[in-house]
């Protein structure tokens, strides 16, 4: 059914990706003086599969977190979804377009932000950049004014509207980039590492803005990141890619429920002397890790023990001042997914 080209119209998903594959041919680089001389004459070709039969779809209004280590294939996927790269195999339909084929029309209907590279003109003032974009995207005056007003309010851009981009801090620049990518009101927004290198406050502001835009305009967002707190804050859906393959695609809460293996209990002992009795609680499936003299972190298998039982056991045997129960951190779950390489 999916091979039927008519299907483009009947799909309800905003982004439909089927068996997407990208191979690169590169040259092996040799190191050092000897290698540099060898490179001068002969170079060895290698083929790398950056994205390997990736399939997923995104519904309108969704916010999806796309995560993976460096070189896992995140950026390559985004580049294919935005029309910069032509896939080696498989297909993409987004907003009703095949991105690389209808690139120029398609770009009017998407917004893109690359965290490491600004989309703005380096030497000119922010507001001038916006004016150029207004012309490039043929945005009507009224829309432009309205959206500019809205963004400068939520993102607080007023103070540096007249500053050249090169003089902005990373956080300020990212806010401007975000505003720039949304000036033409695209229904679909791609963000590649939008919070990379930002401090906590700046990150927070960006996240709040994205939530607001998603709420107001139902803008669909696909963001890559390797900061998992971005995903916890923003998206309910998470996709994990590693070595070009999707390892997990699903609800974040669902992932936690299904794949979290342990819970953890952080506790503070009344005094140092209590530590002597620690051995009594670390039995079958329960481990205990020392943080400092009186602080310990206990992990236990969710299937074998209930929190209530573990805590009862703990307070019975040791004199404890404080207890905090926590879920397994999402980083640990993701790490395990990478290691196992596949999820059922």
């Amino acid at each position, binding site marked *: 059914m999916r091979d039927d080209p008519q299907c483009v119209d009947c799909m309800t998903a905003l982004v439909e990706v089927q068996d997407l594959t990208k191979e690169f041919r590169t040259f092996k680089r040799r*190191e*050092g*003086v000897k290698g*540099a*001389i060898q*490179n*001068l004459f002969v170079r060895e070709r290698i083929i790398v599969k950056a994205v390997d039969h990736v399939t997923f779809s995104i519904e309108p209004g969704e916010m999806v977190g796309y995560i993976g280590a460096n070189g896992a294939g995140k950026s390559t996927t985004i580049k294919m979804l935005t029309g910069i790269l032509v896939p080696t195999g498989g297909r993409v339909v987004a907003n009703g377009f095949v991105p690389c084929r209808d690139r120029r029309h398609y770009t009017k209907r998407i917004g893109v932000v690359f965290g490491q590279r600004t989309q703005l003109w380096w030497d000119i003032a922010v507001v001038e950049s916006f004016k150029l974009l207004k012309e490039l995207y043929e945005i009507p005056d009224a829309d432009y004014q309205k959206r500019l007003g809205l963004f400068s309010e939520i993102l607080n851009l007023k103070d540096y509207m007249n500053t050249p981009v*090169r*003089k902005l*801090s990373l956080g300020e620049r990212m806010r401007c980039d975000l505003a720039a990518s949304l000036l033409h009101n695209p229904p679909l927004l791609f963000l590649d590492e939008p919070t990379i290198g930002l401090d906590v406050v700046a990150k927070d502001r960006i996240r709040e803005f994205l939530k607001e835009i998603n709420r107001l305009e139902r803008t669909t967002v696909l963001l890559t990141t390797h900061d998992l707190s971005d995903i916890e804050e923003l998206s309910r859906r998470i996709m994990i890619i590693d070595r070009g393959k999707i390892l997990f695609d699903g609800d974040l809460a669902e992932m936690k429920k299904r794949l979290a293996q342990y819970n953890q209990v952080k506790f503070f002992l009344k005094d140092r002397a209590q530590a002597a009795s620690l051995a009594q609680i670390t039995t079958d499936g329960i481990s205990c890790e020392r943080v400092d003299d009186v602080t310990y972190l206990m992990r236990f298998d969710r299937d074998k023990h209930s929190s209530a039982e573990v805590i009862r056991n703990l307070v019975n045997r040791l004199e404890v001042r404080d207890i905090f129960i926590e879920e397994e951190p999402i980083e640990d779950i993701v790490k395990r997914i990478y290691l196992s390489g596949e999820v059922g």
Partner: protein
Amino acid sequence: MGASELALPARPRGGASLANQARVYAEFIRVGFVNTLAYRLRYYTGIVTYFIYVSIYYFIWKAIYEHSAKIEGFDFKQLLTYVAVGWIIRSFYYNNIDQQIAIQVMEGKLAMDLIKPVNTQFMYVAQALGESVFRLALLTLPTAVILALVFPLRLPAGALNFAGFMLSVFMSFFIVAGINFCVGTFAIRLKSILGLLRAKYFLLELFSGLLIPISFFPEVFQKALAFMPFQYISYVPVLIYLGKLQGLGIVKALGIQLFWVFAMLALGDALWRWSSRRITIQGG
């Protein structure tokens, strides 16, 4: 590309002894050498570039010598050799220290130079020397061989002349490096020094005697140029090669050249001290 090769040499440990200093500069020379290797096509095309230059002037001078056998004491073959050898040695002494400094300034990285525990001028000159040594092997020699095969060039006037010529070219490098470093220090104050770099480029081409022998210039110019370092970059070394300078003349020329080497490097050092006192680093 080649990011790993760009890694800076380690800081010298335990004081700045002479041996340590030497090791640091040697490391800069090595980095310059390896960096240059990374530019593949540049060397293939560099040879073509120099060949084109010499060809242009070959045809111009050929047209000119159709009417006269000798101009200002040069016959056609001598003049052709003058032009070819001039361009060949240029492929060795050439460097773009000025451009490098300008780029550092534009990217706001000049402060990085200041915190390195070495003399900034020596660092740039040492790195440029590394590149020049490299070009000697991959650009200068192949260019010389090809030009000698295609055009009827003259051999050096004698063994002594050749030795003097080599020494002279070696000093040319330092004069050019010194001048370029001076020009580079202006980059610290200007937003765009491209115009300045181009002006310097054409000034050196003309007044070093690369395009046309200094003796072709009107009298007044010749007198003025005698008090400047430019002709010691190209005109003088090639005169030694051709045997138009002999014996004591060579020694005297080399002496003056040596003076200009130190003068230009000293000027560069002074300008740098003066400029770096009011460095403004653009952007972050």
